[in-house]
C-alpha cells in the first residue's frame, strides 16, 4: 500500500519541477485549513517518516549504511564548514535520512526525463527566433537596476570580500 501510495503522490505533486518554469508552480494555499485538507486527502497516504527511514521492503539504501564519521569529515571539508565531535552522531543520522530519501526518489522510474517527453525539438529557425526576442528583465535584476553590493556589509572598491582568503589555486 505504501509503495503504490508514494509513487502516485510523487507523480501528482505539482511542485516538482521537471524543467525551468515561471515563478508560479500552482495556486498558493490560502489557509492552514486548505493545506491540512490537501495533506489529509486519501491520495496522500504516504509518510515522510517512511521515506526517511530504511524501512521500505524494497529499497534498502546501501549508501546510507555506508555513512560514517569519515563521510562527515569529507562533507564538512567539501562544504567548508566545521562541526564539534559531539555533533557527529546527529549529522550522520541526518545524512543517512537524506540519502535514504533520495534513494526512494530515485526508485521512482517516472522521474527520469526522456528525449521527446519535454517540448518540441528545437530547430535552427526557432533558435534564431528566440535570439531575436531576447530581452533582459528588470524583475530579474538583468538591467543593472540594482546594487549587488547593497546585500553585503563588507566590500572594497566595488568588490565582495571573502575573509580569511581562498586557496590560491583551486
Amino acid at each position: 500500500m505504501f509503495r503504490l501510495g508514494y509513487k502516485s503522490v510523487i507523480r501528482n505533486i505539482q511542485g516538482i519541477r521537471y524543467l525551468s518554469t515561471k515563478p508560479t508552480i500552482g495556486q498558493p494555499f490560502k489557509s492552514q485549513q486548505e493545506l491540512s485538507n490537501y495533506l489529509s486527502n486519501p491520495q496522500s497516504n504516504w509518510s515522510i517518516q517512511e521515506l526517511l527511514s530504511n524501512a521500505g521492503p524494497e529499497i534498502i539504501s546501501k549508501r546510507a549504511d555506508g555513512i560514517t564519521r569519515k563521510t562527515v569529515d569529507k562533507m564538512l571539508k567539501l562544504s567548508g564548514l566545521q562541526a564539534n565531535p559531539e555533533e557527529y552522531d546527529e549529522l550522520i543520522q541526518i545524512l543517512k535520512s537524506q540519502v535514504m530519501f533520495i534513494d526512494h526518489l530515485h526508485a521512482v522510474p517516472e522521474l527520469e526525463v526522456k528525449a521527446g517527453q519535454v517540448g518540441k525539438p528545437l530547430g535552427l529557425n526557432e533558435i534564431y527566433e528566440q535570439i531575436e526576442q531576447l530581452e533582459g528583465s528588470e524583475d530579474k535584476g538583468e538591467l543593472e537596476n540594482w546594487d549587488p553590493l547593497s546585500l553585503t556589509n563588507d566590500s572594497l572598491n566595488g568588490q565582495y570580500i571573502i575573509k580569511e582568503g581562498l586557496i590560491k589555486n583551486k
Partner: protein
Amino acid sequence: MVRCHRLFSTSSPLLKKKQELLIPGYKLKCGLEIHSQLDTKFKLFSLSKTSFQSTPNSKISYFDASLPGTQPLLNPEALLFALKAAKALNSTINTFSTFDRKHYFYGDQPLGYQITQHYQPYAQGGFLKLLPHDNESITGEKIINIEQIQIEQDTGKSIYTELENEAFSKIDLNRTNIPLIEMVTKPDFETPEEIRCFIKKYQNLVRHLGICTGDLETGAMRVDVNISVNNGHRVELKNLSTTSSVINAIKYEYKRQIKLIESGETSKVIQETRGWDGSKTVRLRTKEGALDYRYMPDPELPPIILENGINESLKLPKLPDELMIELKNAPYNLSNKDASILVNDLKLLNYYFQLFEETVIKNKVESKLPGNWVIHELLGGFTKLQIEFNPNLINVLKLSELLISINNEQITKSSAKLLLQHLMNNPGDLKRPILELIDDYDLGKESNVDQDLIGEIINQVLEEQSEIVELIKSGKRLNSVKFLVGQCMRLSQGKIKPNIFEDELKLKLGI
C-alpha cells in the same frame, strides 16, 4: 665503416624539428582542454549583459548573484554559438543533451556549483587537421581527434590579497555565468609544436566563426594540458595564460618526468595537477586531494532537444583552411606566407578582399598589387607608427585609388610608397583625391623622360659607387647593378621607372 644506427626517430614524418625537441626513447603524449568564452550579448542562464571591462559587479542579475528563488534559463544564442563550434570541428551534435551541477565550494561561484554538461554533452567526437599550410614544421597531415564539447558557465573572478594582518579575496561576479564551451581533445599530440599549431588554429577558427575573441591574454580562452611520458601517469597542467607558457610548461614537465624516470624514481611521476609559475611546474594537488564534484543532473534545466538534421541546416562562414586554398589559387595567387598572414587576421582579410574587388575586379589592376600593398606597405606603415592595423585610417577606397594610379603609370611604386606613408602620418590629406596629391607634391611619374637627366643621374651614381662598379665590371658582383638602380631611383626621387635606369646602366657597364 658504415654507421647504420639512426640518430633520431623517423617514425613520424610530420615534424621536421621533432628530433630537436624530443629525446629518443621518451614518447610525449598530450591532450588539451580548452575553455572558450562565447561572445554572446547575454550570459548563459540569465539575460544580464556580458562585458569584459566593466566596473566590478555591475553586470550581474539576481541569478548570477545566486539570490534564493532565482532560476536558470538557457540563452539560445550561446547554444547557437556552441553548435557552430561543433560543426566546424566536425563533431557529432547530440540531439539530446542535459545539464549537470558540478559542486565545489569557492567564493567565485556563489551557487556552490557550476552548471555544466557532464553526463550528456551537446557534442562528441570530431577532429581538427593540422596541415602544412598551418606551420612550416608540419610536413604531412596530422589529425587531432576531439573527445567532446560541452556548454558550461564561467565563474566569477577572485583576487587573493595578502596584507600584513589579514588575508582576503576580492570577488567580482561580472564573469559569473558567461557562457563557455569546453573542448576536450584525445591525447593525440606528440610534440609541443603540434600543440602550438593547434592552439593558433583553434583560436583562428573561433574568430572566423565569430563566437569567441580567442584571446588567451584576456582569459577569453584558457588552455589546460594533460601530459604523459611513455604512457606513464597523466599530469594535468593548469594556469597557462599564453601560448608560450603552454609550450614552456610542456617542455619543462617533459624534462622533469624524464629526469625522474632516468634516476629510477618513476614512482614519483604521479597523477596530479600542476601549475606553471613562469619558470617551472609546481604541484597544485594530487589525485588523493582531487575534488569530489558530486555531479548531479540539474533539476531546474530541461534537456536540450534538437531537431534531427540541425547540423546540415547550420551554415558556417568560409573557414581558414578553405580560405587558405582560395587565396593561394587564381585569381589571388598569394604565397603561403601572405595567405597565412591574411587568414590569421580577419580585419586584414576583409580589407584585402574589398581592395581586390575595387582594384583588380573593377579596374583591371594587376592582381599582385593588392596583396603586396596590404601585407607589405600598409602593414609596414602601421608597424612604423607602432599601432595596430586599422582599416579606417587608410580606407579601402583610398588605397585602391593609389593602386589604380600605379597601374595607370601615373605614379611610380616608390613615390606611391612615400605618398602612402605621408597619408598615414597626415590623415588630413585623405580627403583629397590621390591624383591631386600627386600633382601637389610633384610625385608624378615623368611621362617624357629627360635623357639628359637620366645620364646625369647615372654618371653621378657611377662616380659615387666606383668600388661597386669595379666589382660589377670584373664579373664578381653582377647582381649589384640592382643596388646602383636603387641609388638612381633615390636621386630621381622615384619619378623615373627603374627599368629605364637598369637598361642604361647595363649599357654603360657593358654587362
